[in-house]
Every structure is written in C-alpha cells, then in structure tokens.
C-alpha cells in the first residue's frame, strides 16, 4: 500500500498525512480526558514520551516486533495514567492541570537522565516501522472504538461527569472510578501515538515531549470542539497543517500560530464544531424532513 502511494503521492504530503494520523490518535486520547470527562490535562506529551521511549527501547535493544513494542509502550503509558489518576483525580480543575504539567515535566527530566534512552543526546536508530497504512488502520480502529464508547453507558457517564459531577453521582455513577478509567484510556492512546511517533522519526529526544507539545495537543482538542470526535479530528487536521502552511512566512510562523489561536478563540469560543455529535446531525436531518 505504501509503495503504491509513494508512486503517486508526494513524499512530503504523505509525511503530513502520517503526522495527522499520529496526532489524531494522541488527541482522541486527550479528548477522552479533557474534552469528554472535563478533567484538564496539560501533560499529554508525558504519556506520549513514555510510549515513545518504551517502544523504541524494546525495538532497538530487544528486537521486539513493532506492534508488540507499540502495545507495550501504550500499556506502560496507561499504567502511569492509572497510577497518576488514583491520587490526583480528587483535585479539581486547575489543580489537576498543574499536577499533569508537573508529571510531564518530571517524566521529561527523567528521560534527560535516563541512560538507556540516550539521556539529553536523544535516542537514535529506531527502525522506521511506522507506515501510512499502519497508522491509518489504527486511526480508523481508534475512531470506531471511541465512537462506540462515547455512545455507550460508560461514555455517557463521562460526559455527565463533565456536566455535573454531583448529579452524576446521584445517578449511580462511580465518578472516581470513571475518571480513572478515562485517564487510563487517554494515557494508553497517548502512549500508542508516542510509539508511532518514535518509529517514524528514527530519532527522539526528551525535547520532543516538552510542555509545548502538550499545549499543541490541547490546542487541537479545544480548537475543534471539546468532546466531539469530528471536532477533535478537524482541529487536529487544521493545527497539523497550519504550521506547514505557515512555512511561507518562515520566521514569523509561530507568531502567526499564536495570533491564530487568539483570533479563533475570540470568534469561535466553543471550538469550530462546538459540541457537534452524531445526534445533532440526526436532529438537523430530521428537521429538514419536517
């Protein structure tokens, strides 16, 4: 499939498509935590780096097959999500946000000093196992499972926690447990995306997973519309392409990026697609019939 594509599609565009795919895996994970459940996480890059380093080390040092390494990376990230979730999820709003920032910073500093990960120099020689086809097959599976989840009993209870925690409890929702589950699943996807990233880049360093990376991912989720799968995908596509488009302005690229965020938030404060979910579309279709 990839051999076929490279014949017809410019390698540069293919590369951007791969990044869009990886970012969708990452942001759908973050969306579960922040968009759906309403728990502000500003350290998603921390989970990403856990997945990236774990899978890379397994591939390089232990010659573990790619998909096994990916899965292992995602599971390690999920484990950390779980361990972080238990004590911290009783913190509210911005207190939780600062803990997630701190967690990601600690992980980053850890890898800066981590011998098997090459310390600050970075880790190179990772096999380039990530392919366009591989990423997008996983993206489609992740979107499908997310869709199923958000339209199930568990998914609805996550939205309910975001909307009103006390009312959710009164409906019999074990909010602590559901928050930890959302956190664990979000971290799993973060680790999975990180694994794909590492196996595409050939080389990773702790600086790839700094605070700005977490912020970039959060921007994608909020820009498109928190909690909405189509919204998150749209936000991710736009903000993955935007820096590429802005290459024409070269040095002024990040200047425009910053300004773009402010302007978009002023004119579309609830994200591009707000909370558009499938039933909104159904509702509109239904109205047209009448």
């Amino acid at each position, binding site marked *: 499939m990839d051999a076929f594509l490279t014949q017809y599609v410019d390698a540069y565009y293919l590369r951007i498509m791969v990044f869009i795919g990886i970012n969708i895996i990452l942001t759908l994970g973050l969306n579960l935590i922040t968009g759906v459940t309403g728990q502000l996480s500003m350290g998603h890059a921390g989970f990403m780096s856990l997945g990236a380093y774990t899978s890379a080390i397994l591939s390089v040092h232990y010659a573990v097959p790619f998909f096994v390494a990916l899965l292992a990376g995602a599971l390690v990230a999920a484990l950390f999500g779980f361990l972080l979730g238990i004590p*911290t999820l009783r913190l509210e709003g911005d207190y939780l946000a600062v803990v997630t920032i701190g967690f990601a910073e600690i992980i980053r500093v850890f890898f800066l000093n981590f011998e098997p990960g090459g310390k600050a120099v970075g880790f190179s020689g990772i096999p380039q196992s990530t392919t366009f086809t591989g990423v997008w097959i996983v993206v489609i599976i992740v979107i499908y499972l997310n869709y199923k989840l958000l339209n199930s009993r568990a998914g609805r209870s996550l939205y309910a926690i975001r909307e009103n925690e006390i009312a959710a409890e009164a409906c019999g929702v074990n909010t602590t447990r559901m928050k930890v589950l959302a956190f664990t699943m979000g971290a799993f996807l973060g680790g999975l995306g990180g694994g794909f990233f590492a196996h595409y880049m050939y080389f990773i360093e702790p600086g790839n997973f700094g605070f700005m990376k977490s912020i970039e991912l959060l921007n994608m989720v909020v820009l498109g519309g928190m909690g909405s799968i189509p919204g998150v995908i749209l936000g991710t596509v736009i903000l993955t392409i935007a820096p590429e488009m802005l290459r024409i302005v070269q040095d002024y690229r990040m200047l425009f990026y*910053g300004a773009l965020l*402010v302007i978009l938030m*002023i004119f579309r404060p609830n994200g591009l697609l707000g909370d558009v979910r499938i039933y909104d579309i159904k509702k509109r279709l239904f109205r047209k019939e009448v």
Partner: protein
Amino acid sequence: MFLEQVLNGLTLGSTYALIALGYTMVYGIVQLINFAHGEIYMFGAFIGLFLVTALGLNIFAALLGAMIFCMLLGMLVERIAYRPLRGKSSRLSALISAIGVSIFLSTLMALIRGPNTTRYPEMIAQNTFYLGSVEVSALQIIILVVSALLMIGLQLLIQKTRIGKAMRACSQDIDASSLMGINVNRVISFTFAIGSALAAAGGVMVGIYYNAVWPYMGTMAGLKAFAAAVLGGIGSVPGAMVGGLTLGILEIMGVAYLSSSYKDAIAFAILILVLIIRPQGLMGQKISKKV
C-alpha cells in the same frame, strides 16, 4: 553552608513569589491561568536590559521603567485577548487564548533579539560580605529588599485602598461586585497591570542575578511560579508569597543535597506531593461544595 543555601533559596524564591503574585491575583478574580504571564516577565527582563544598555539608566530606574512598560503590556494583552472572551466562553477557550499570546510574545522577542541568550552587563560590583559565617552578595540583599518592599506595597494596596477593596470584592463574587457599582473591567485591567509590574520587577532582577536573558525564559519560570501559586493556594496573595519562597528554598536544597540534573523535576515533585496531602494548597481555604 546550609544557611547560605537558605539565602540562595530565598533569593530565587522571592523572584518566584513576584511572578506567582500575578498568577494568583488574576486567578482570584477571573479564574484564568494567565499563561502569557511568563512572557510578561521575560519582556520585563528585556526592557530592563534595553534601558540599562541603550539608555544607560541605573538599576532602579531600569526596574521602574520595565515595570511601567509591562503594566501597559499586561493591560493591552487583557484588553485584546481576554476581555472579548469573558462571559461568553468556557474557561478553557480563555486558556487557549492565553497560550496563543504566550507563543506570540516569545516569538516576537525571538524575532527582535534572536533566540539566543543575551548577557546583562554587570550592574553591581560583585561585593560579598559576611554576616556571621554566611557569605552574602550585595545583589542578593537588593533582590530581597526590593521584593519585600514590593510585597509590602502590594499588601497595603490591597488592604488599605479603594481599588484594593474593589479587587477583594471582585475576587469574592464578580457579579455581585458589578451590581454594587464596581467597574469590573477596570478592576480586572488594574489587576493585570499590578501583576505584570511585579513580574517585570522579577524579570529584571533575575536577569541581573543570573546575568542572562533569553526569549524563552518565560516558559519554565512561568510554570514554576504558577506551581508556586498553586502550592500556596491559588487565589491567595499571602499564599503566593509563601509558595514562592518555599519552592525556591526546596529547589535550591534539592540541587545542593540531591542532584542538580533533576533540578526542574524537584519543584514539581514537591508540588504534587503537597497537593495530594493538602488539595487546597498550603494557605488556600477549603471550600465545601455547595449542593
């Protein structure tokens, strides 16, 4: 040795506290994590540098100049990027807007001055003297005294003046304050101005102390100052001071007695531990949920 480390920690901590005050005051009134605050601090450091090198001002004039400039910058940022969002959007949108401003300002400075470190000229002869057995530099004394004066000034402003009373009212209940005839927008604008001025003072002093400024210095300093504000109990002015000083001392101690390569992790590890044990921060009040 130990006392010297405490002094170093106090010096570092008082700059954290100056920045943390801006976070906590803004948060107390509009519940926004002003992520551009670190960049205001960075601008303060650069304006101070400019005033010293280009205009040849002395340290105190440069400090004042940077504070005034950043006051205006802070008010401008609030007017352009936050006010249009207020009341009609979620807090997260405002947060993203703040992040946009933060990226914009640091890139702007990188374009003006280049992304690398610029050195501050030596402003104060590196006089050191001994207090008992503790070695103290003149610069440390200046930083501690200036910070202390600014914090006392802030307390007087908040407790004794009309605008201070309005600020306290707004942090209790912004809607009720508005109904009582307080011009809420003016109070918020003023809060940004004061917070930014304090951050600028921190920036100039850090620039001189570490003899270096660079366009991305605001990110890590901002994160740590925010951590300090949360550590003290966000929204609480005394909390920001205590949180800043505590964080400064613990960080220096961590570097001195544990490991310097984990410097940036120490502050956050402490923060997480404190929050797990005391979720409302050191000085924050526990607010029981209203049902």
